[in-house]
């Protein structure tokens, strides 16, 4: 079962789940039209999710049936597969008779015209209760603000900012979102904080992370969630080089950097946009797991 003390959020294109804290993303795709996420823990793969936009409304139970028949051609008759199909919290689910077979589930998301499929491979910790809890925890990820929770970063971002870059490096994760007009939101998460900050302040640490040409200045100190000490930094840009550096309007960048000593983490949130498009409360949308 997903222990109530430990579930963490998983939020990506089309989906929001509550998952055990030990599950980590080991494969991902950024494409909102056709992609996947694969999660695993030390015992092996725990969850695979796939999504793709579809034309028309698919019959999900028939698709799941087809999926089972394709994966196990001689194991189940059509009637046996149908008998094992269930509906759990809006999902069409194939619950296998034995633990050595995967669980297949699917649902159609009419607002996004997307088909979402979930596979729970055989795993020592997979129980029927866990499958139920996981599927029941699903929430759609639609609306004007989208939730992104992955690689230890948990952030709500306006829907017109699209996922642009993912850097899932160990102890250095970055998710970058970009608006079609070039405004950006970049969330950073670094590990081994006591080592990183042994000879650095938060300002000098982030200055090393940021492009060498960016001139950062300190705006103020702040406490993230009234608990974690941080600094708010600023920078300005004008154009993208050449003649645009003279003619373009000035954009402001705001960076919030803070340290969580109890987690040995440093977090940073970098928002770059023209003054009128800036999101001053963005820092409140960043949740520390």
């Amino acid at each position, binding site marked *: 079962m997903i222990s109530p003390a430990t579930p963490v959020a998983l939020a990506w294109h089309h989906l929001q789940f509550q998952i055990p804290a*030990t599950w*980590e993303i*080991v494969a991902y795709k950024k494409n909102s039209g056709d992609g996947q996420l694969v999660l*695993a*823990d*030390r*015992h*092996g*793969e725990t969850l695979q999710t796939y999504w793709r936009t579809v034309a028309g409304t698919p019959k999900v139970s028939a698709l799941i049936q087809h999926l089972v028949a394709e*994966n196990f051609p001689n194991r189940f008759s059509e009637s046996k597969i149908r008998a094992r199909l269930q509906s759990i919290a809006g999902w069409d689910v194939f619950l296998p008779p034995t633990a050595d077979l*995967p669980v297949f589930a699917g649902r159609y998301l009419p607002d996004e015209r997307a088909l979402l499929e979930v596979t729970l*491979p055989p795993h020592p910790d997979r129980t029927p209760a866990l499958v139920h809890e996981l599927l029941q925890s699903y929430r759609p990820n639609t609306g004007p603000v989208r939730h992104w929770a992955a690689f*230890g970063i948990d952030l709500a971002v306006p829907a017109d900012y699209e996922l642009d870059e993912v850097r899932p490096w*160990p*102890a250095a994760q970055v998710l970058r979102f970009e608006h079609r007009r070039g405004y950006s939101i970049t969330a950073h998460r670094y*590990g*081994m904080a006591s*080592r990183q900050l042994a000879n650095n302040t938060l300002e000098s640490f982030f200055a090393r992370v940021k492009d060498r040409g960016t001139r950062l200045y300190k705006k103020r100190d702040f406490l993230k969630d009234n608990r974690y000490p941080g600094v708010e930094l600023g920078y300005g840009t004008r154009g993208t080089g050449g003649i645009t550096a003279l003619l373009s309007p000035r954009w402001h960048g705001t960076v919030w950097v803070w340290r969580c000593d109890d*987690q*040995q*983490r440093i977090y940073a949130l970098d928002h770059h946009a023209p003054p009128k498009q800036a999101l001053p409360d963005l820092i409140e949308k960043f949740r520390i797991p």
Partner: protein
Amino acid sequence: MSKAPDNQFRWQLGLRPVRNQAVTIEQLADGKSRLTVPLAHRGWSRLLQRVLPLRNAKVVELDDLGTELLAWCDGQTTFETMIDRYQQRWNLSFFEARTLLIQFFRPLIRRNIIVITADRPAEQETS
């Protein structure tokens, strides 16, 4: 859906890195260390050694973290135990710690400073 990658993954966690006994370790200040790996010249290299000043050892320096990790390579501690220790020490996730350790060990294995030992798979023992 194949089980093979999972088995390989579990097998990797059971590996036991061990230090090459021929490597000499010199402790430096601030927890750093200097490793000297003797080079064995064979074939053409051995002949060339008589006329060219080929080096007889290569030297690698480790920082304090690397020195600590090298001390864990005693041939008894499994890779999984090392991951657990590193994970706890730095509050990392399992896969973060695993990747960092692999990144650390890979060049040391290439330079023959660390050797990997493994249990013989059960099916091979019985055959």
